[in-house]
């Protein structure tokens, strides 16, 4: 620590160069924070997937519905604890821009298989007993200012009523929270009964089933049993763990991970040159000074450490600032990716990358400082 003033002075020996290098590194880490943040936000859904749950969809595609009657058959299978279902309602509120993730469900079943959705007991009861009742996420409630007791009209882009209209009215009877993952607080649930009685086509079907298994180690087996049960029927199924389901869904959008990796690889490749060249120059210019330090009794190892510390200080300072800006800007992307905070692992990753960068760019000049021949250097 006592050498800190020395390091600091060395760093600011050429102000302009240090500032520009600092800014280059800062920009790279800003990008790192934002891109990795988006990437990990997408992957969060996969990582947070529950191992107890399986998702059963039509084997043709997610958009094909399954008969409601399948539920009783699935429930009777060994290893199955609970079964729930949901469907895609696809509505918007007032304007197509206000798309709302809405699912008709059977309340008792759904909240049983998703214990992480926290809903007060009396609200769940009200939900079960109100035909037009709806339970909404806390975030959604904040966004539109909806409260319990409000009447909310939604326009479905898919489901028409027998009279040809697609406007459905709901009464908000509950607001749920997900303390473990606030990004999940934007859904809108309503009674399947109201949905099935009201729609003009597709009656008696559901979008997908959610199966809670008794023993997570048996999930592959249970999945196979479910699919076998419906094999060769007109509604063949595909059952996957929640994790596989989420992964497959992300892959549909495209390989985000790959694009982010490509871009960041390119950015850090360029950064390596920028920082490396700064460190090289700075050591080259200070050869006589370093020789004086050595004359004063600094050991070879001390010289090596000194230069490495200098590059570490530079990289860490810039990376911290860059990540800080990314952290500040990240909530601005909320509408795009639905995640409010820059995931903490990204910051840790960033610091590790910064240390790596510092070592790689610092080691060559540090080695040079270590091997410095005092007589040669002082004469030069």
């Amino acid at each position, binding site marked *: 620590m006592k050498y800190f003033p020395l390091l600091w002075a060395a760093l600011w020996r050429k102000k302009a160069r240090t500032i520009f290098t600092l*800014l280059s590194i800062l920009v790279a880490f800003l990008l790192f924070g934002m891109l990795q943040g988006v990437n990990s936000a997408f992957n969060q859904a996969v990582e947070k997937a529950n191992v107890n749950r399986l998702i059963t969809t039509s084997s043709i595609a997610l958009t*094909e519905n399954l008969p409601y009657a399948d539920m009783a058959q699935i429930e009777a299978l060994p290893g199955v604890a609970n079964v729930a279902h949901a469907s895609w309602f696809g509505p918007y509120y007032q304007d197509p821009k206000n798309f709302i993730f809405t699912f008709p469900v059977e309340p008792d079943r759904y909240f049983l298989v998703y214990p992480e959705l926290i809903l007060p007991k009396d609200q769940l009861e009200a939900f079960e007993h109100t035909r037009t009742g709806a339970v909404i996420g806390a975030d959604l409630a904040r966004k539109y200012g909806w409260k319990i007791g409000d009447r909310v009209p939604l326009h479905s882009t898919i489901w028409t009523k027998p009279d040809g209209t697609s406007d459905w009215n709901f009464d908000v009877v509950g607001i749920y929270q997900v303390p473990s993952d606030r990004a999940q607080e934007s859904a809108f649930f309503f009674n399947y009964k109201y949905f099935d009685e009201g729609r003009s086509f597709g009656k008696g079907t559901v979008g997908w089933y959610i199966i809670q298994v008794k023993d997570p180690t048996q999930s592959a087996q249970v999945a196979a049993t479910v699919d076998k049960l419906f094999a060769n029927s*007109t509604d063949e199924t595909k059952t996957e763990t929640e994790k596989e389901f989420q992964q497959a869904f992300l892959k549909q959008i495209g390989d985000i991970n790959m694009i982010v990796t490509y871009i960041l690889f390119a950015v850090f490749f360029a950064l390596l*040159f*920028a920082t490396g*060249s700064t460190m090289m120059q700075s050591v080259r210019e200070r050869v006589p000074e370093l020789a004086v330090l050595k004359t004063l009794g600094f050991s070879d190892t001390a010289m090596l450490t000194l230069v490495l510390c200098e590059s570490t200080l530079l990289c860490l300072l810039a990376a911290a600032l860059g990540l800080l800006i990314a952290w500040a800007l990240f909530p601005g992307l909320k509408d795009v990716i639905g995640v409010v905070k820059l995931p903490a692992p990204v910051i840790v990753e960033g610091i590790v990358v910064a240390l790596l960068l510092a070592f790689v760019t610092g080691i060559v000049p540090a080695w040079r400082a270590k091997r410095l021949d005092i007589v040669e250097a002082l004469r030069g």
Partner: protein
Amino acid sequence: MFKQTTAITAMNLRSIPQRVGTSWVIVIGIAVTVAVLVSVLAMVDGFSKTLANTGRADRAIVLRGGSVAELSSTISRDNTITIMDAPGVKKDADGKPIASAEMVAVVALPQRRTGTAANVTVRGIGAKALELRPEIHIVAGRMFQPAVRELIVGHSAVTQFKGVDIGSHITFRNTDWTVVGEFESGGDAHESELMGDIETVLSAFRRNLFQSVTVMLDSPAAFAQFKDKLTTDPTLTVDVKREPDYYAEQSKQLNKLLNFLAFGVGGIMAIGAIFGALNTMYSAVSARSLEIATLRAIGFGAGAVVVSVFVEALLLSLVGGLIGAAAAWLFFNGNTVNTLGANFTQVVFHLTVTPHLLISGIIWACFIGVLGGLFPAIRAARLPVATALRAA
């Protein structure tokens, strides 16, 4: 003045090899920025070209009112007949409307690259569909037979998904379908689809509702008449759109995202590259301060010094820009990418690194070079001659 400028500039450039380490910083920083920018823009271009090609001004698509995309729309058989008989629809030689009432369904097929399932559109098309879309032509195999479970597949779909080559079988809803032909349609959105006879597809999916009606109009101007007729008909609740408008709407979201990526990420990288360039040029100026001072002392003008620094910065950026553009072209030109489109199904598009994009990449490079060279050039010109000489 001109002579002085060329003399100093030439001297500068000849000395670049001595400063090769720092010069690389400019070149690589800019090359990387330009490569990323050009490849993302190539994605934007490829995507909008795919969707822009799909529409024709003299074709209109009719969906149920309030449905955003075909997948969520439903139209009854009676209504499809009313729509096709509306005024403004072009008739063929035997007096029948050139129109196709269609349904779309989604089937999950494995992607060639990753093996994971992707949603692919199966479109049931009417008897007049090929007259309606003359851009579709069979390039291998043959057209499907009506009333038989046969499909034709788009060329883009073949490149991206497994199990759709001619002769392969696709099973859904307990029905077995054979792929009998491959078609091309100028790289538009339909090329990512499978197509079959509408009645056969409807019965396989046990449906009796159509999802869209596409019609050929007498002329682009006949659209207003056609639309007025349908929207005032009390038996219909439909949205009528010109095809290009419909497809532009479908691509809006993704276009926005890609542009954000290109200019957001590209812009931030450009700022980083400017810092790199500033660094390089400042150190170039300070390394040559003695030389510059000497030149000034023997009578060379400040203007000539400024220009020489500028030219060096520009030249290095140009090299960087060229390397970046070439890399983008080499690695990404002609690549095929697929993503989830608005219909919840995959749209396949081709990355095309056009000359236009290459040029705009190089312009960006020069822009970065100019900004990076400006301040160091001014500093070089302002260098106090006496101090600089004494310092040496």
